[in-house]
């Protein structure tokens, strides 16, 4: 078993990740189609991010990019079955959640390129993509802040008595912030329909998780909030999917919040400018060997659901989609300078800023 629900009263040590990176949880309730969809989505997420990284390296867009390569199982497991009405509260590293939730690639690349066709018309950083039509909160950079806003969305959903859920994602570094605590405590008190997913990738920029918190398992922290905390092998897509769906179903049916700690690893630096010298080559290699995508491939192979042709087909067709999206984005204009003054209030302020009126004396 790679996963274990930790009831507050009896937290236990986290299950270890599977040996050799093989997924080690089985769930007969997951259909073959779903398994294949999970895999193909993970593959596409990686292609998408590797493309973004390449474009960034080629300086085809400005600003920074925070790749989640190596963490695909978490995002896909949590996001793949969400409904449009469900809300996602992403962190800086969750660009791919947009894709998983259905945001068109043209829009996502417009975001990277800061074009007028981006959801924010070039205002936020490239990786900070949100999308109102699909209820994806446009993130600030402030770590953990999205969890608190997401918690408020959950409050609204509860008030409206609908069955929408919120999935709020962050890294293990976020758990040190007061915001994080206030969000989870409040969600516990009000039994809100929300799932907090902590992507414990061992590093917060250059800071080891050992300096972030004294506990080995972030999921233990749920003990203090009175709702379940679960540690799952975040590189095991099947386990991740199962645990996330269980938590989402619980939230949807009024069972309240869950904290999921997904143990995983980011393959690259914190952002594209970080050489990540603070960690050892061995550690990186060890985790690359636990590649969630490769593990899922082996899992499907074992279930005779995989073929090299199918994989190639995913690659080919998705790469074409990416080509088209990049081409689209590159053709779009940037916002006009004056648009800097827009979307400040529900009313227009251009006149106010541009035309400062001088008074003349009245004698």
């Amino acid at each position, binding site marked *: 078993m790679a996963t274990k629900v930790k009831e507050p009263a009896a937290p236990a040590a986290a299950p270890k990740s599977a040996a050799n990176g093989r997924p080690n949880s089985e769930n007969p309730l997951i259909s073959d189609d779903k398994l294949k969809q999970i895999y193909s989505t993970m593959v596409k997420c990686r292609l998408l991010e590797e493309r973004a990284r390449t474009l960034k390296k080629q300086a085809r867009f400005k600003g920074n990019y925070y790749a989640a390569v190596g963490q695909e199982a978490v995002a896909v497991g949590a996001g793949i079955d969400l409904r449009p009405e469900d809300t996602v509260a992403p962190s800086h590293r969750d660009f791919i959640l947009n894709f998983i939730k259905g945001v068109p690639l043209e829009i996502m690349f417009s975001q990277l390129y800061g074009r007028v066709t981006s959801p924010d018309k070039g205002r936020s950083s490239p990786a900070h993509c949100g999308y109102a039509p699909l209820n994806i909160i446009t993130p600030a950079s402030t770590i953990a802040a999205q969890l608190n806003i997401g918690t408020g969305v959950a409050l609204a959903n509860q008030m409206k008595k609908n069955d929408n859920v919120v999935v709020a994602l962050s890294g293990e570094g976020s758990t040190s912030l007061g915001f994080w605590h206030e969000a989870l405590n409040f969600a516990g008190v009000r039994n809100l329909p929300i799932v907090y997913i902590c992507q414990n990738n061992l590093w917060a920029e250059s800071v080891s998780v050992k300096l972030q918190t004294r506990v080995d398992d972030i999921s233990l922290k749920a003990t203090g909030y009175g709702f379940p905390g679960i540690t799952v092998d975040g590189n095991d897509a099947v386990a991740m999917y199962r645990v996330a769906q269980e938590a989402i179903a619980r939230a949807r049916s009024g069972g309240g919040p869950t904290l999921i700690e997904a143990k995983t690893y980011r393959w690259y630096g914190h952002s594209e400018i970080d050489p990540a010298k603070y960690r050892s080559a061995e550690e990186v290699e060890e985790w690359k060997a636990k590649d969630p995508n490769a593990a899922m491939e082996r899992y499907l192979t074992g279930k005779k659901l995989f073929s090299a042709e199918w994989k190639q087909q995913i690659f080919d067709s998705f790469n074409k989609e990416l080509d088209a999206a990049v081409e689209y984005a590159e053709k779009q204009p940037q916002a006009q300078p004056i648009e800097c003054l827009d979307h400040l*209030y529900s009313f227009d302020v251009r006149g106010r800023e541009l035309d400062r009126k001088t008074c003349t004396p009245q004698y």
Partner: protein
Amino acid sequence: MSVSYLDAINAALNEEMRRDPSVFIIGEDVGVMGGAFGVTKGLYEEFGPDRVIDSPLAEGIIVSSSIGAAMAGMRPVPEIQFVDFITPAMDAITQQAAKLRYRSAGAQTCPLTLRVCYGGGTGGGMYHSQTNTTWFAHEPGLIVVAPATPTDAKGMLKASIRQDDPVIYFEHKKLYRLPAIKEDVPESADFLSDLFHCAVRRPGKDATIVTYGFMLQPSLQAAEKIAEETGASIEVIDLRVLNPLDHETIPNSIAKTGRLCIVQEDHRTLGIGSEIAATAAELAFDCLDAPILRVAAPDVPAIPAAEPLEQFYMPDLPKIMTAMRQLLQY
């Protein structure tokens, strides 16, 4: 019927909650107890614990959960019990609420009204007397209002709740039950006040006082006294809105009077008076006949508790009189 400032706020909340089921209240002690000052009294009884939420002791989540709820279609009216304790919500207010519409190019918005109790002169000491309006008046994306009369208290709160932008609504604790300001307040459920302009509370032609909140009281008294003493007529402007500032009413007044004094309860440096003076020195320079004066608290960290120290700190009628005589004699 003569209505107090506090009752006006309470009525506004009640009316808006009756009108619109998406309006709800959240804060410390706002429910069962009806608020530390009784402002939300009766609402818990009428609207129940789901619309009048006694929150955990955490200003951050009071505001940030309101932002999320607002984004999802509600109209939250969170409360900060004392502005002295607003710092835990600083990120929520300045980095989230103020910037959400902008960072999403208008796609995501948060129509919330944060009620904040502020103000000194009650012996409350360093942590129950602060003003702290500057932090928010400085943040584009927020509307910041500070009513000084029961009518404004009601009309501006109702307008704030209906406004599609985040509003910080500063209510002065010394005004809550002040008999002197009780007045008839329009009873119509659709009575709303303007959220964008100053109000000339007393017309005049020899000098202009700009002030807001409780300080309107000693300012009006000073104008009266000056008129009696010297015959000079002082225009008293109630700022009402601290952000975005009304850049027409004040320069227009100066164009007429040529003299400006700002009275603020906040300490001098970077209080709202700085911006008003700076704007006047830019937009009404030719009209100015005298230096711009500010009657403000001294630049000390907060209001001390002991009476002699508090009195030294607080701007008041004698201090305004001194400044106005100086201004008129210039």
